[in-house]
């Protein structure tokens, strides 16, 4: 096996392919479907200070094989239950993970990060980009000043690996990336979902039944946007960048590596193929060996020449 390891500014991954927040739960369910040890790290569903019930009504809308729209609304068990019930399992099973966290106020984030610090959680990913919750949180995601302030406050209470995850729903992702870096983030991940609306019309003799799902667009259709933004972010920051958006094949992973991504996350494709991360990781390994690139680092070099 080739050396696939990545050192993200001190945070070490055995492979560069992680699973994205909200698409892999807390890792527990996926054991039946894939070999967890092949995954670089799993990112948990967003955790907030209090449990959240999420949105009522339809939460999922499929857009053919192009992607999907979700409006889960950050439903989650809250950090206390995460720490008491899920964390011991993750540690016991030796699963490398990143805790994704979301909040409505700066205090929420800071308090969550504190608890993460106290419980020796090795890495957190700050979700400032959830487009499907009304209250405030998109603000941090689109205003560079608020984002730098938020990041630096989290930085003060959290000493381990701090990832800030950016939203594509902005005209200036570069400024946001710089804010995260200036605020003290160790790493940036991008992108979260694009804003999208799914419409389904059932036209029957008795009238027209309409389904509307407004939320976050993910999957294959967002890949060009993600590539664009990751490339732009790489040009303005020195910290590592994790590329996310529409990845479903080894080719996609190589494209993100070629434009400078240090690692990647796979989201929606986990629903289509629950063993996709394991599969691509195996393919990456074989690809490196077949082409005599020796290691992931060497491959990255070749791709960026």
């Amino acid at each position: 096996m080739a050396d696939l390891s990545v050192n993200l500014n001190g945070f070490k991954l055995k492979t560069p392919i992680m699973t994205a927040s909200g698409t892999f739960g807390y890792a527990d369910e996926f054991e039946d479907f894939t070999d967890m040890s092949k995954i670089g790290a799993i990112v948990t569903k967003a955790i907030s200070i209090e449990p959240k019930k999420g949105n009522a009504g339809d939460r999922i809308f499929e857009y053919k094989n192009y992607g999907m729209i979700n409006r889960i609304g950050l439903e989650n068990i809250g950090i206390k239950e995460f720490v008491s019930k899920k964390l011991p399992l993750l540690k016991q099973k030796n699963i490398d993970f990143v805790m994704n966290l979301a909040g409505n106020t700066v205090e929420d984030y800071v308090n969550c990060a504190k608890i993460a610090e106290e419980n020796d959680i090795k890495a957190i990913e700050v979700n400032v980009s959830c487009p499907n919750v009304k209250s405030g949180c998109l603000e941090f995601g689109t205003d560079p000043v608020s984002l730098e302030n938020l990041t630096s406050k989290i930085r003060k209470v959290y000493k381990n690996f701090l990832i800030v995850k950016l939203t594509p729903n902005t005209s200036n992702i570069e400024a946001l990336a710089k804010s995260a870096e200036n605020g003290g983030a160790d790493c940036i991940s991008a992108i979260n979902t694009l804003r999208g609306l799914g419409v389904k019309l059932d036209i029957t003799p008795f009238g027209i039944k309409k389904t509307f799902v407004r939320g976050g667009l993910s999957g294959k259709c967002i890949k060009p946007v993600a590539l664009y933004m990751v490339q732009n972010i790489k040009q303005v920051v020195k910290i590592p960048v994790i590329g996310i958006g529409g990845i479903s094949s080894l080719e996609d992973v190589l494209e993100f590596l070629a434009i400078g991504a240090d690692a990647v996350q796979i989201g929606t494709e986990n629903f289509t193929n629950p063993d996709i991360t394991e599969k691509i990781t195996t393919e990456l390994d074989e690809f490196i060996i077949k082409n005599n690139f020796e290691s992931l680092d060497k491959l990255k070099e070749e791709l960026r020449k």
Partner: protein
Amino acid sequence: MKRNHKSKVINNIKIAKGTYKLSIQSDIEKVKAGQFLSILCNNKTLRRPFSISGYENGIIEILYKLKGEGTEFITNLKPDDDIEFLAPLGNGFDVKNVQNALLIGAGIGIAPVLFLKKVLSEKNIKNYLITGFKSEQEKIEGSDKTIIGGSVLDNIDELINEIKPDMIYSCGPSIVLKKISDTGIKHKIKTQIAMEKVMACSIGVCRGCTIELKDGTNKTVCKDGPVFMGDEILWRI
């Protein structure tokens, strides 16, 4: 144990207007009626969930209606074609301590209760299956009573008074299910309702398919369900 199966189609035949029966080879050892599987469709982002309508020696059977592109993909599967699916998923119907069951299937909702009827009969549990279809051409065989055109709810009170079931099982459009749940409450009979919701992961991780219970909790249809006690569901219709 539930997992991702890469298997073969045994048979895929039209059994009624717009309705098909698909049989799949598998090495699954045990399935409960009410459980479902989730089929990978190459032209779709999300897998498509279907109730298991029969199981014998590893062979899994589903009954499905042609709806859109996902089921169109499935209708094109031929014997010996590859098929990939997650199974068995969900909790299934609970038959413990049941002695006299009324089963109600509206439309393609017949699928899981047909399987349940077989299970109950094998256990010698008294049961009666009533189903309803929009037209004679859409009718699927196997019920004790079939209503064509009308609704399975049409004479439901009389039927309950006659049969005196100690459990009602049902699957179908949610508007029907809510009424069955209400009917159960009225007659003080427990109902087990197989729910449907659009699913992304179908294994309980994405929280895309939740319904609310009266106790204020959110439950996933795919993992906590699809079968819920009718009187615990907070109906939103």
